[in-house]
């Protein structure tokens, strides 16, 4: 099976070929003999060319893998050839919205902006409290507040849109 890793504007070819007791994985032209054991969901024991690795793998969203090695977590964006095509098509189609979302379940302490107000990238727009800590959430890009979806004192779901921004005129 062939894949592509997207990194620093590059497309790195990866091939996975199953073989007895594991795989032969070729990354960017370099082949590796891998003895792979599935331990728990997301937990693997890998013997790569004799070296032993215990790795946690999560996939928080399609085509994205967070791989935890001893020294930290890597984010790997890995697509199948088909996925690559689909990605290409969707690009440019509106791109990503810039609403500010709740990082986790919590409670809105303070809304710092009003509808119609212009905000700069990095400007604090709303304060959410969870686990005894207040977090000021910031605008991810310059924009104009189109809509406020949370009121002070209100509980919010993790990931919920709180403040929706429109791109600035010159940006639109």
């Amino acid at each position, binding site marked *: 099976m062939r894949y592509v890793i997207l990194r620093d504007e590059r497309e790195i070819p990866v091939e996975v070929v199953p073989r007895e007791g594991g795989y032969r994985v070729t990354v960017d032209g370099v082949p590796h003999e891998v003895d792979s054991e599935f331990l728990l969901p997301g937990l693997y024991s890998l013997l790569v060319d004799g070296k032993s690795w215990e790795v946690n793998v999560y996939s*928080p969203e399609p085509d994205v893998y967070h*791989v935890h090695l001893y020294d930290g977590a890597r984010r790997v964006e*890995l697509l199948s050839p088909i996925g690559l095509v689909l990605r290409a098509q969707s690009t440019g189609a509106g791109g990503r919205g810039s609403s500010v*979302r709740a990082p986790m379940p919590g409670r809105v302490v303070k809304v710092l902006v009003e509808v119609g107000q212009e905000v700069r990238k990095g400007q604090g727009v709303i304060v959410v409290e969870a686990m005894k800590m207040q977090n000021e959430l910031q605008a991810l890009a310059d924009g104009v507040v189109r809509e406020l979806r949370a009121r002070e004192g209100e509980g919010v779901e993790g990931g919920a849109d709180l403040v929706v921004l429109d791109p600035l005129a010159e940006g639109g």
Partner: protein
Amino acid sequence: MIRKVLIANRGEIAVRIIRALRDMGIASVAVFSEADRKARHVRLADEAYPIGPAPSSQSYLRAEAILEAARRSGADAVHPGYGFLSENADFARRCGEAGLAFIGPPPAAIEAMGEKTRARQIMARAGVPVVPGTLEPLEDLPSALREARRIGYPVMLKAAAGGGGKGMRLVQSEEEMEGAFRNASSEALQSFGDGSVYLEKAVLRPRHIEMQVLADGKGNCLWLGERECSIQRRHQKIVEEAPSPFVTPDMRARMGEIAVRAARAVGYVNAGTVEFLVSPEGEFYFMEMNTRLQVEHPVTEMVTGLDLVKEQIRIASGEPLRIRQEDLRLRGWAMECRIYAEDPENGFLPCPGPIVAVRLPEGPGVRVDSAVYGSGEVSIHYDPMIAKVIAWGEDRPAAAAVMNRALQEFQIVGIRTNRHFLLQIVSHPEFLAGNLSTDFIPRFLGPGEYRRPEPHPVADIAAAIAAYESAVRGQAAPPAQRSVSAWRRALR
């Protein structure tokens, strides 16, 4: 004689206290909120009673419910742990009125030290060096601006009613004062029910070193050596050690004697900690006294061979201290790392959620105090500190090596933790060189604080295999917890 103790707390500290009680053959009584029915402190205690809904304000902070549980269980003493009601003089007083031994200092001592500005006045009178600053809470913004101008920037805003970094802000210049004052007050109000704050001269590149004291009811008061607590993230300690690489035997003795003087000045009894701000030149100033057990007490236990919780209980039951100052022997070096359920790659935002599996580190030199367990959950309602890893070695390099190994072995599958961030700290050359200060993290780990490591071929291989197996064998890699991934998308 104490026969049954109610622990007015939760999490790792409740578990740690239950262990000490079990070792002493004393019955333990846990209390729990609706969110904690399955929590380890409930399962390990001899008895357990519900005290209300999940929010602390309706459970662990409700003196009424806790005293009722004590009455029902027939407990004869209460251990408050840290946080919650541990520094609430009124609660301590009510325990006494209910005929319960409060395993902590007398209410008067809590009050004297609890109100930070008053404490500074008392210390100043007792000849304990204090940092220049306001000896009164600030009425309003203008007075804050006026005092800051008098003392000279940079200054530190602090909550008058509590500690632990809550309601604390560094103010570099006049412009920052308004926002800092507003946030500090509201956070103080949120955390301690009292929004008053005060000002202190900010000592630049300071160390935070604290001295453990132990006083019985018979007039004996000892110091047990210092703890280096300079490694902090936003005023929150995350790595502590004992002894401090900065402290000489002579400095230790001087700090110890000052700490004992501070304790005596408020008629202190039981275990307490005097926190000092230490300048790069070695002058030390009294910051505050924590009139309770500290989160980081284990590092002192590892080097002294004493069990501080057992000592607390013996003192509360009226026993005299069994050691004298000259008996104190420090062996080797100990470090503690605090494991938080938070995501270093995402602004250290808390990561509540279900825990799939836990693998504790073990082996020589490793101690774990935790409350996490497989198939458990980290609740949104409480502090995200879920475990403490303590490492002991014959010297500082050995202890650091053990800590490194222990952090590598520790696996908590299901939620994000700061484990890798801690690994970056304890393996950092400046840390190993003992070059510690409260600005260690911004100074040496950069403004982003957490550095994502370089790409690694094994990570690429693992991702490819996970993708392959999810496609071919249906062994999908589990998604990270929803809120976090959603947030990650928002960040991009």
